[in-house]
């Protein structure tokens, strides 16, 4: 109330000045509509400004008393072009300007720049939307659980403007419910939860008439003291958003204790201003949503999604009464192609700035955009001023860390939930760095194995057991080599067999003979290679237990060779003599059987040697 009287005094003083300044513009009509149904105050001014001076005017000033201006969270002007109902969507940007020409410091001025200057005698219509946070003062400041919440709103019935106003009205919309009191002067009418002041005509500049409305507002006063919103981009297909909330009830504080019995049993003592449900509107195709706090997961949440949005409704662990706090974390993932685009060689992230919670005032909002490792040339374009900074975050498979762009803003209301863009350069090859790290990790393991197998870590090199081990290894190596050679011999036998089959098919005797010659030569070589190995084995003491088997193997193989050649020559002979197939078979039958048996034995022996 002291504020009000001081204001009235200064007004007297200012009315002297008013006539000399800003006489070029006159507001011919202004209709103000103030919406008090939620805890965020929204005021819409529809004004028609007329140029009655002689010069072209290109800006319009809007004045707010400092008391209101410090709560002003967002201001937006829409410019209606043309005379009809067609609304052009151009937006002019108001900026705060402090008038140097003797304007009182109790007022804050916003200047709206008109797209084209207003000539002499012209009118322009503007729609100004101003959003105020923390403008409703709870009065009484402390209530019990049974009381409803009463709040006070202060404004001026006359629009405070540096220009003369010809016609004006003020309409205040209340949420319904009890209206404790409201200023009846001048011309107030309360109809159906709406208070109308006016219409007032021909008021001088800077006229002010304080109006106070004291009414009941039980809308959930959700205020987030601090919200940290982390947006992490992974080029493998996901945008992960994690939001940490410190929520407080911004209305009248609760006194006198909380009775759970009254809260649940008697609906009249419920705590009308408390809230227990919070709604989040997330983008469509959000997945992997979690809701937890320091203690753990909170299971009281529901979500449902369709193609246009995903709606998440959460209940904190307890109902929030005035002055009570809670803190929690919400996280969700979004598909990458909805938000990341390639523009002009750069990549652009297009995502909303504010909180997805319905009707929440955020005192301090910090948005951190975490870009993948290897991004550079980072810049952001946000539709309103923010404080920007950069930091580094170390996350999965990081070497140098991921660059983080930090955007801070205070006094954020849902009108700030607009899309903003972050531009950066990223080379697709940097994406390969992550699998390369994993591959080199595994490769190092294998190299360690190889090194271990190749090094000789025995302590004494001349002990009997060590020497015995060495010799055993040599024997093993030799046996393996012998096996190798025998396998090669068997391969040659198979080839010979194949040539015989070819003969019976095509009848080409010449190629058969050639095949036999090559087989002969190869076998001779293999036998030569076999000789030193066999002699070595014969002489080494360690091989005494396998020597008989090896000897047997070699002997059987030799046997096979001879029988093979015999059969071959028989068949070729028969062919040359042009004997029938039946005859050939008869003659070769016995040899065939013996060969088969021998082959089986050789295979068995090889298997046995394998197992040693």
């Amino acid at each position, binding site marked *: 109330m002291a504020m009000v009287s001081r204001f009235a005094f200064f007004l007297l003083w200012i009315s002297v000045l008013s006539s000399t300044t800003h006489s070029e513009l006159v507001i011919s009509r202004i209709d103000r509509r103030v919406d008090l149904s939620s805890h965020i105050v929204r005021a819409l001014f529809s004004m028609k400004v007329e140029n009655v001076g002689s010069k072209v005017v290109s800006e319009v000033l809007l004045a707010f008393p400092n008391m209101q201006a410090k709560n002003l969270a967002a201001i937006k002007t829409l410019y209606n072009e043309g005379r009809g109902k067609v609304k052009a969507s151009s937006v002019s940007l108001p900026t705060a300007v402090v008038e140097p020409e003797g304007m009182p410091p109790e007022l804050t001025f916003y200047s709206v720049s008109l797209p084209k200057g207003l000539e002499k005698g012209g009118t322009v219509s503007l729609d100004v939307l101003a959003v105020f946070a923390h403008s409703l003062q709870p009065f009484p400041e402390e209530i019990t659980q049974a009381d409803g919440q009463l709040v006070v709103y202060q404004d001026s019935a006359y629009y405070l403007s540096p220009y003369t106003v010809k016609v004006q009205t003020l309409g205040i919309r209340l949420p319904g419910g009890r209206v404790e009191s409201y200023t009846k002067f001048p011309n107030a009418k309360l109809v159906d939860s709406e208070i109308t002041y006016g219409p007032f005509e021909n008021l001088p500049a800077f006229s002010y008439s304080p109006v106070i409305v004291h009414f009941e507002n039980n809308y959930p006063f959700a205020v987030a003291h601090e919200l940290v919103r982390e947006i992490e981009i992974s080029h*493998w297909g996901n945008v992960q958003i994690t939001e940490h909330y410190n929520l407080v009830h911004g209305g009248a504080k609760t006194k006198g204790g909380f009775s759970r019995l009254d809260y649940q049993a008697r609906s009249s003592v419920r705590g009308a201003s408390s809230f227990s449900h919070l709604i989040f509107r997330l983008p469509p195709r959000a997945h992997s949503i979690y809701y937890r706090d320091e203690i753990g997961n909170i299971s009281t949440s529901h979500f449902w999604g369709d193609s246009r949005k995903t709606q998440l409704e959460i209940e904190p662990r307890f109902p929030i009464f005035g002055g009570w706090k809670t803190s929690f974390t919400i996280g969700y993932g979004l598909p*990458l192609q909805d938000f990341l685009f390639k*523009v002009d060689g750069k990549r652009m992230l297009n995502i909303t700035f504010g909180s997805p919670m319905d009707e929440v005032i955020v005192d301090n909002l910090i948005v951190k955009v975490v870009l993948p490792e290897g991004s550079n040339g980072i810049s952001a374009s946000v539709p309103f001023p923010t404080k920007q900074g950069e930091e580094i975050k170390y996350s999965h498979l990081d070497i140098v860390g991921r660059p983080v762009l930090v955007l801070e803003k205070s006094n954020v209301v849902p009108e700030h939930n607009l*899309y903003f863009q972050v531009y950066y350069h990223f080379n697709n090859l940097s994406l390969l760095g992550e699998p390369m790290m994993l*591959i080199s990790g*595994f490769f190092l393991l294998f190299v360690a194995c190889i090194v271990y*197998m190749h090094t000789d870590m025995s302590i004494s090199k001349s002990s009997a057991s060590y020497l015995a081990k060495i010799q055993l290894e040599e024997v093993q*190596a030799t046996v393996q080599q012998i096996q190798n050679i025998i396998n090669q011999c068997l391969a040659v036998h198979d080839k010979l067999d194949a040539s015989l089959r070819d003969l019976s098919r095509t009848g080409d005797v010449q190629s058969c003979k050639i095949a036999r010659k090559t087989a002969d030569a190869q076998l001779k070589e293999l036998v030569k290679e076999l000789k030193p190995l066999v002699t070595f084995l014969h002489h080494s003491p360690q091989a005494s237990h396998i020597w008989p088997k090896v000897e047997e193997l070699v002997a059987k193989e030799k046997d096979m060779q001879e029988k093979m050649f015999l059969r071959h020559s028989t068949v070729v002979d028969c062919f040359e003599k042009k004997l029938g197939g039946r005859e050939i078979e008869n003659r070769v039958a016995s040899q065939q059987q013996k060969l088969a048996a021998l082959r089986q034995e050789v295979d068995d022996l090889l298997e046995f040697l394998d197992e040693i």
Partner: protein
Amino acid sequence: MCDRSRLSKHRVSQCAAPCGLRSGQWRPDPSGTRLPHLLCFLRRMAPKPVTSPVPVQWYPALSALLLIGGLFFTAFFFIYEATSSTRNRSLAKEVVIAAVASTFLGFGSLFLLLATGVYV
């Protein structure tokens, strides 16, 4: 206003037009993506959505396949180490098998991480 036909077909519903005021409240359009007004007029530079180099639906199958291949080669490596004797071992063969096995295992574990939701 912007011409829808010029925008990429993928998921853009409409341009960022500030909506008209209705009873003192305005909200951003909740459906799909809204691109900045300016970009609508840059016909040649219409933004193209960026997707992952490998389709996301393939991640689990791809990780299983690559890990199985990797384990197969690992088994091959260890069998070779165990059965060959000191003189017969060839370093080149060992290193090659190890390299192939580690490549498969590396990619397989990367896709395993991605399939389980750890978007690295």
